[in-house]
Structure formats: C-alpha cells, structure tokens
C-alpha cells in the first residue's frame, strides 16, 4: 500500500509540472498588456512602466515562471490585480462554500445512484430498469442551470419551501445552511447521480453474471446478502473511477450553480475574475482546483488498492 502511494505520488510530479506550465502559459497568452489595463485610461507611459516593474513583467519568462511556481509551492498565489488582496486568502474564504456544496452534491448523487443502480441491475430489462435508465439519460442531458431554475421555480417560487438564493455559514446555523444548500446540491448532484447510476448498473450486471455469484446463490445465500456482501465491492471499482472523475465535474459545475443560487463560493470568484480579467485570481482558482482534483484522484487510486488487492502489486 505504501509502495502504491509512493508510486502514485511520483506519477503526480510530471503532471503537476505540466499543469504549472499550462496555468503559467495563461499569462503569456493574454492579449494586450495587463499593466495598461491596470493603469486605467489616462495613464502616462511612466506609470505603465512602473506597474510593469512592480508586476515583474520585464523579467525573462523563465524568471517569472520560477517566481510564480516558488510562490505557489509556498501557498502564495499572488495578489488580485484590482483589490490587491492575496489570492490565497480569497480562495480560503470561499473554499468552504464550494467544498460544502460539492460534498453535499456527492452525497445526493450516492443517495440516488446506489439504490437506482442496484434496482436497475437486478431488474435488468424490466420496467424499473427502463425507468432508471431513462431518468439517468435525462439527468445527463439536462443542463444544470435549467434543472436549478426549474427547482427554484417549483420549490421556492411556487411552494415556498426552500430559499431561492443566499447562504448561511454552517458554523452559524447548520439547519439554515442545509436549507440553503439542498436545492444547489440536488442541481449539481443530478448529473453525477445519473452518470454513477449508469456505471453501477453496468458493472453490477457484469458482476452478477460471474460464477462466484452463482455459487453464493446456489449455497442458498439470500438475494440481498449476495448483492451487499459479494457483488457490490467488486462492482464498486469502476464506480469509484467515475466518482473520481465526478469531483472535477462537480467543481466545474459549481461555478454555474453558485451563480444561480448566489452562493459566495469559488465559482463567483472565478466569474468575477474573468469579467475583470484579473489573471492572478483566475490562475489561483484554476491551480487550486486542479491540485484538489489530483488529490482526490490519488485518494481514489488508494481506494482501488483496498477494493481490489491485485492492483496493489500490479
């Protein structure tokens, strides 16, 4: 297991290197001069030159890259071009909202997909399977913002059960936090639920055709026990892969969902930065999200080792 961890960590190094090139490349790719943007409309050439100096834009690219990576490794993501606030501080403030939303969405996805996937796989070809498969396909096809707006329309505007927008921190009032987060979490989790249901259905139906399942049934093991104790753990391997991918999609999708429900998360920060063309903030959010996705994928790889001991030595 430790060997697996070490090998995976080593594999991450080249990927991190490429990620850092790509994100740093964003700055190089920016058309126009950020110093001119920053200096405003009636700036003198001297003022622009001064800002270029402050931002280190006149240094060689390799030096700029080294300075940037050096900072990132120490948790310094630079400062916003406009507010001057450290990017790392802004991210730290908004991270709990996005992570909370992503976690809750994942829970929603699992609560829907595990029963739905089991029902679809065990009733394969019959109507429960058809209904679950159709709903899963529809869930994948529905744009999250559309689903979110329909939920707001029904549960906030028509029924008045849940708030349409706003946010209350978990530590202030957990119940209010949950009330504000339910609709966003369903909105964001629906696509993940759909994808996971499809995956669980297909991997569980494969596993259920294996000889050892027939043996377990022949021994007289009860149907529920066959699924829970014999089939699910093996069927979980491809499902965990999909869940790992889902984390990236959830973090991306949260940008939209936060926008609809006015949640003060990383998505709002990213959108604001894109509109202002505040490159250090864009870079910071993207790097943070990429590293987060990599850490989750590392955890997924380790989970494989637990689910399937063959992988540990492979």
């Amino acid at each position, binding site marked *: 297991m430790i060997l697996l961890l070490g090998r995976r960590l080593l594999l991450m190094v*080249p*990927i*991190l290197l*490429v*990620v850092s090139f*790509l994100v740093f490349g*964003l700055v190089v*790719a*920016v*058309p126009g001069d950020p110093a001119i943007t920053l200096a405003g409309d009636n700036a003198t050439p001297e003022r622009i030159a001064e800002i270029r100096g402050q931002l280190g834009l006149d240094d060689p690219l390799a030096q700029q890259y080294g300075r940037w990576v050096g900072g990132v490794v120490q948790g310094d993501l630079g400062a916003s071009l406009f507010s001057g606030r450290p990017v790392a501080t802004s991210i730290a403030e908004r991270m709990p909202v996005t992570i909370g939303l992503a976690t809750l969405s994942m829970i929603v996805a699992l609560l829907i997909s595990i029963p739905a996937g089991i029902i679809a796989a065990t009733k394969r070809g019959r109507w429960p399977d058809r209904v679950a498969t159709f709903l899963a*396909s*529809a869930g*994948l*096809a*529905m*744009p*999250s*913002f*559309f689903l979110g*707006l*329909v939920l*707001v*329309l029904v549960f906030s*505007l028509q029924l008045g059960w849940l708030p349409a927008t706003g946010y209350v921190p978990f530590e202030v009032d957990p119940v209010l936090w949950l009330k504000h987060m339910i609709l966003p979490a369903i909105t964001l989790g629906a696509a993940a639920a759909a994808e996971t249901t499809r995956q669980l259905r297909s991997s569980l139906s494969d596993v259920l055709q294996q000889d050892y399942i027939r043996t377990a049934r022949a021994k007289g093991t009860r149907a529920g026990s066959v699924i829970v104790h014999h089939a699910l753990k093996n069927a979980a391997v491809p499902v965990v892969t999909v869940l790992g991918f889902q984390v*990236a*999609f*959830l*973090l*991306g*999708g949260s*940008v*939209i969902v936060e*926008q*609809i429900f006015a949640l003060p998360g990383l998505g709002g920060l*990213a*959108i604001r*930065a*894109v509109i202002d*063309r505040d*490159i250090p903030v*864009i*870079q910071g*959010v*993207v790097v943070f*999200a*990429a590293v987060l*996705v*990599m850490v989750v*994928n590392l955890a997924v790889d380790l989970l494989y080792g637990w689910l399937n001991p063959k992988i540990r030595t492979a």
Partner: protein
Amino acid sequence: MTDTGSLEQRPGRPLEADPWSTFTGPAVAADQVVAVTSFRRFLRRFAGQPMAVGALAVLVVLVLAAIAAPRIAPFDPLAQDLQDTLQGPTSEHWLGTDELGRDVLSRMLFAARVSLVAAAQAVLLAIALGVLPGLMAGFLRGWVDAVISRITDAVMSFPPLLLAIAIVGVFGPSLTNAMLAVGVIFAPRFLRVTRGAVLAAREETFVEASRSIGTPVLRIIATRILPNILSPLLVQTSLALGFAMLAEASLSFLGLGVQPPDASWGAMIGRAYRFLAQTPTLVVFPGIAIAVCVLAFNILGDGLRDSFGRDTRGAGR
C-alpha cells in the same frame, strides 16, 4: 476483421476452416465485400434500435429546422415589440415573447443554428487536436506515449468547465473563444479513445502480417489502423456533440459565450432567468430544447456503439 454478418448468410461455411480455402478473388475485392457486409450489418443492427433511430430522426429534424430558420421562422428574431413583452404562449406567438417583445419561437430557431454549429466546431477542433497525438501515442508507444499521456493527464486534472472559463477569461468572452475552450477540454477524450483503439488494433494479426511483409508504417496506419478506430471515434463524436452543446450552453448562460444580439439556447436562458417568476416559459422552452438535443446525441452515441463492432455478449440487446 471477423465478419460474422456474411457468415450468418452462408450457414454451411465451416467457421474454423482455413480462411484462404474459400478465397477466390483478388484481395481488393475481398476488402470491398467485407466493407459492404459490415456496413449492412451495422445498418441492420442500428435499425433494430427504435430509440437510436428516433434520436437520429429528432436530430435530423432539428438540423433541417436550423437550416431553414430564415424561411420558417414566423417573425424576425431581432424585431422588438415593447407593447407585447414577457408573454406566455399565445396563438400569435406560439412560444411567447421575451423581455423585449421578441418572438421566442423565432429566436429559438435561429439559436438552434448557433448551438448546433458551435457544438460541431468544438468537436471538430477536439478531433483535430486529439486524434493525431492519440494515433502517435498508441502506435509508437514508448516515450512518445509517456509524454503525450502525461500532458493528457494534466489537462484532464482541470475541472473542465473551470478550464473553459479560464481560457475564455484570458482571451475575452466570445462564441469563438468559448468553442476553442470547449474543443481544448474535449481533445483529451478523443486522444484517449484513439490511443486505446490503436493499442488494441496494433495487436491484431492482420497488422502484424502487414508489418512482417514490410508495409511502411504510415500505410499500415492509413489502411489497417484507421478503419478500425473509426467506429469508436464516431461513437465518441456523437457523445461529445451532446456534451459540447451543454458546455456551450453553460458558458453562454454565464455570458461568456455568444454575445447579444445573437443568442444560443443557453444564452436565452441566461437572459431569461431574471424573469423566472413572471414568465417561466422563457426558461423552460430553451431548456427543453437543449435537454432533448443532448439526449438525442447521447442515445444516438449509445445506439452507434451497440451497432458497431463485433458480436459480443449483450450486443444483441
């Protein structure tokens, strides 16, 4: 390529016999026979899937409607009528009017053009960026594969939508930049599908045979590998078109894609959601259009997957 389609039609033929014993004509003719029968088998299997055929029909109708938009749209999509804003469906305006009194049906017909063309552009770019490196990685393997795979891993470790937003953020909001971004985030999928298919195809006996008689590498790729990776690529294309349409809709919803007065379905929802309480149909109709279209691409992709390839357990479903 095992050709079970032709075998089924000639039941007396021994399955395990030396394939050359029945070989009479020149190799080229045999290739054509194989191509024709496998295409027929594909058509037969595809026709046996009512969902996939239905999805294809929906998409054909949508494309035709988008092409014919200037002829069939009841109103000018940009014509404003400030006396008649935010209407629900009426006999005059079948899908109602928006906040500037523009006819929603006409706008949706024109938006279909933007949404479909944008998705196609993004997927073409993804194919252009993904297939060649995928071929190289799968065929050459070794360090080329290692380098290309690490770059793919890196691109795939960005949350896709966030990467698209960052790219649009750097180059400025426009439909072209949004589609560039979507193309870039989909390229790794095509790369992986291509690489996987090439890795499988290069182990085939017929590729080994070609290699052993000294066929040049490029010729092997063009005549032996490419035809065998076309079907997974076509499946992936159909699925990617659906996802690209969702991505374009998301970016345009955020105001980072198509810019006014042009609109895509996503952009229409982005404008309409401020009026959700007054005129929910403004959000609902474009939303249904996106969902139906993406669903059709997904069902078509699944149908293609089940219609291609060799007979496997479950392919007859």
